């Protein structure tokens, strides 16, 4: 037998080795491995956040509540049948774009950005919803086509991706728009987009950098890129964050300074220590060892996600699962890359560790979809 090809078609009913645990997972619509990993990261995240928030129990309690809400949301979403998600996909997309349009006209916000909708005192960020609606919609669209996709389908996919992305860039929210675009394009990649197109796109992107720089990027976004290239230029202004976070990380060494002992984080040198820059606190206090453990956990989550996508029943499940997983990795990579000075500073939180409820709920809802795919009842034949 050729296991590589065969396991895709293997039917659970024929698998005598099917264990009790698998049946339980099936019934609960949960994936225990994934659940265990997510809980571990969340718990570790609270420990780091406690230090990063200057030992504020209030922050930890609030974050704990968000985790509970997020895990409940995940479990609820995990119960939704995958075919129902596929049917709802166009509607989710339309609603998402509609909300983003509302933000343009009625949005509220702070610091020159307009990102929120305020409905009866309750604040809601439609771009968060789009982070999930986008891969679902694109996966539903491409999942029904011949794969690899032909030019016509690629074109329409790009149109579908760019509408919300442009709306989000306009808010302006570069970080989120990149993530939303990535979650859509990721589907295209997994659908088998020809390498020719991919290379062509990369070439075009490089060529368009100049006009992008000149006409699209806001001043503060340009400054971020510039300070990334040479942070020493502006020690007390835009470069401050990067210098301070690198100092925090570097001074941590291999074993770290110990929990609650980080000087950079606690002397208030490190800005945003409890939100986007939290990994600098982790690196300072738990050292390289702590960073390796966290990266290892993230890697396991991603690999588990890909495994689930591989075992999915149809193209829709595969594309969606892989896109959600990869988007999660993009979060991780962009955040850690930015804090360690590899990437420009774009406001992306570190998944499950940074303070803030919205990002956690969105992420966990995504994992809920992944679990729904993982535990979808197997169909014998088509």
């Amino acid at each position, binding site marked *: 037998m050729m296991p590589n090809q065969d396991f895709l078609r293997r039917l659970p009913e024929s698998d005598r080795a099917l264990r009790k645990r698998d049946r339980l997972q099936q019934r609960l619509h949960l994936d225990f491995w994934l659940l265990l990993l997510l809980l571990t990261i969340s718990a570790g995240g609270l420990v780091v956040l406690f230090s990063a928030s200057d030992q504020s129990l209030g922050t930890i309690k609030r974050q704990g509540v968000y985790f509970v809400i997020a895990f409940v949301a995940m479990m609820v979403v995990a119960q939704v049948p995958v075919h129902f998600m596929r049917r709802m996909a166009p509607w989710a997309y339309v609603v998402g774009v509609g909300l983003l349009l509302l933000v343009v006209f009625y949005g509220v916000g702070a610091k020159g950005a307009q990102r929120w909708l305020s409905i009866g005192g309750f604040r809601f960020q439609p771009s968060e919803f789009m982070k999930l609606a986008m891969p679902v919609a694109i996966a539903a669209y491409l999942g029904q086509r011949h794969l690899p996709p032909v030019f016509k389908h690629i074109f329409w996919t790009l149109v579908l991706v760019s509408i919300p992305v442009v709306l989000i860039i306009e808010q302006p929210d570069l970080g989120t728009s990149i993530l939303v675009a990535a979650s859509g394009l990721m589907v295209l990649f997994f659908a088998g987009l020809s390498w020719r197109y991919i290379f062509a796109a990369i070439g075009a992107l490089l060529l368009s950098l100049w006009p992008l720089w000149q006409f699209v990027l806001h001043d503060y976004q340009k400054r971020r890129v510039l300070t990334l290239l040479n942070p020493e230029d502006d020690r007390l202004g835009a470069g401050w964050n990067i210098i301070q976070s690198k100092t925090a990380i570097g*001074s941590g060494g291999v074993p770290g300074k110990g929990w609650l002992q980080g000087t950079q984080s606690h002397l208030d040198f490190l800005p945003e220590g409890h939100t986007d820059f939290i990994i600098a606190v982790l690196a300072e206090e738990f050292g390289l060892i702590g960073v390796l453990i966290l990266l290892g956990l993230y890697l396991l989550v991603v690999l588990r996600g890909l495994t689930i996508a591989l075992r999915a029943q149809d193209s829709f499940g595969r594309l969606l699962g892989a896109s959600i997983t990869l988007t999660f990795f993009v979060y991780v990579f962009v955040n850690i890359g930015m804090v360690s000075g590899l990437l420009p500073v774009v406001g992306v939180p570190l998944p499950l560790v940074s303070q803030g409820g919205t990002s956690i709920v969105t992420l966990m809802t995504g994992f809920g979809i992944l679990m729904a795919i993982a535990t979808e009842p197997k169909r014998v034949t088509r």
Partner: protein
Amino acid sequence: MSEARQFKDHHREARLFFSRALFAGVVIVLLTALLVVRFYSLQVTHHEDYVTQSDRNRVHVLPIAPTRGLIYDRDGELLAENRASYTLSVVHERVEDLGHTLELLSDLVTITPNDIEKFNDQLRQRRRPFDAVPLRYNLTEDEIARLAVNEFRLDGVEVHAQLVRYYPHGEMFAHTIGYVGRINERELAGFTEEEYQQYSGTHSIGKIGLEKAYETQLLGEVGYQNVETNARGRVLRVLESGDPKPGKDLVLHLDTELQREAFAALEDNRGAVVAVDVKTGGILAAASAPSFDANLFVTGISFKDYRALNQSADLPLFNRFLQGQYPPGSTIKPVVGMAGLHFGVVTPEDTIYDPGYYRLKNDSRFYRDWKRQGHGTKVDLKQAIAESCDTYFYDLGHRMGIDDMHSFGYQFGLGEKTGIDVPNERRGLWPSRDWKRGARGLPWFPGDSLNVAIGQGDVLATPMQLGVMVATLASRGKHYRPQMVASVGGEPRPPELLGEVSVSEEHMNVIIEAMEEVVHGVHGTAQRIRRGAPYRMAGKTGTAQVVAIAQGEKYDSEALSERNRDHALFVGFAPLEDPQIAVAVLVENAESGSGAAAPVARRVFDAWLLRETE
């Protein structure tokens, strides 16, 4: 769509997806490896560079404590000031081995186990990292010099001048001004974020008395300094600063000389004196003896000192004039008499026969007069007050009933907190029908009214309440809120009239004349104190039976009998024609209002009315 599905090659799509997923997996592993390499470079290869950088990274924001507002007496004499004191403190984060450092320090300066204990307590509290924790206050010149010489081996140890509260008259104002003390854990936990910031440079907070009541005004606003320090935390230069705003000064109505005289007049007795400015309600003197040295509490009282104060049978920590609730005895007779006139129960001309006791109909009980043989025939109201005839007031109380007596006495502030600007006052007890039903579940008996009419039974009042009562009599019915503080930060606090007693001029005159008789009449109970006085006074003596001893008091059998003796009381005001000062005196277990309490009042009157004025 269905057309498309027919031709879908699922196996081919799955294979295609597998290859893409494999590719993605490889990219992910590579990117993760890139991050690992990056962190390795930062944390291992360049670790030393960043440690240096982190050490250089020492721009601190130092809070600068505001100067606490000063407290002056009415003549501008300083009652609470801030003295520079050199404090030794330790920044835990900069000390490698705390035990070793403490050992070194104890060789150089005197450090008691008590200091260490307090220091450890503070280390355990929530605080900002790199905050200096005080270890020893009041360093001597020698100690400062020794520390300076050894500075090089004392990383994380700081000596700095700090303003510490000092009370020049430590004992005299301990119960009025109170004291500040170190901020404790409970107070810290109760702080809002803003308060937490406001106190970031401050180690002490008002604990009792005016220091507590006016805490927000006295505190001021915190300032800051951005300083660059070296790796050892020594300040190299100041980059930027914002000045703190000093707290507001308080000027009190209190008069230091009068306060001193009040304490002197109480001699070694336990007791209280309250002197009120009749025109404003300002408190001129408020003494509770014995007292204690408020300075003991400022930098943290030692356990031994505290135990000595707390376990003393004389209760020096107990604020007698504000929290001591005593039966007012006969001192309330002027008020009860005025109520009788006002409600038409008696006229000034009505007289009774006093055989030395009073009996209710259908009641076998004898209500005794303090004078066994009685005050004789034809006792009228004036004589009843002047000689403190109980029988007259039994009869009056019985005929008036509790309801009128209660509502009238209430106008003088009996049974109600006086509203003085010092915290933790008690309200005393001015009984009523409702109170008795609620507290005891019993109806009002006629005998109860008899006891209330002579200020016994359930009646309780603080010396402060008695002071307010007599000041209200002295001002012919004007009931002012008693106030300690005359002005805050130069802003005067106006007198506050709480109410005016509804009584006719004529009835008021009768009572005041009767109170004059107490001092100046031939048979007046306080006639002894008039000798040599160049002014005329009015007053009322009182003797209160001690029913029970104050709670928490530890006593030995020998002291017991002494402490069961009656309390001596006196209330009065002077000069009669244009009253300026009203005084209430309580001397515990001194038995005789006329013998023990009235002379104290006389000395206070003299000190105030005969003082040399510029």
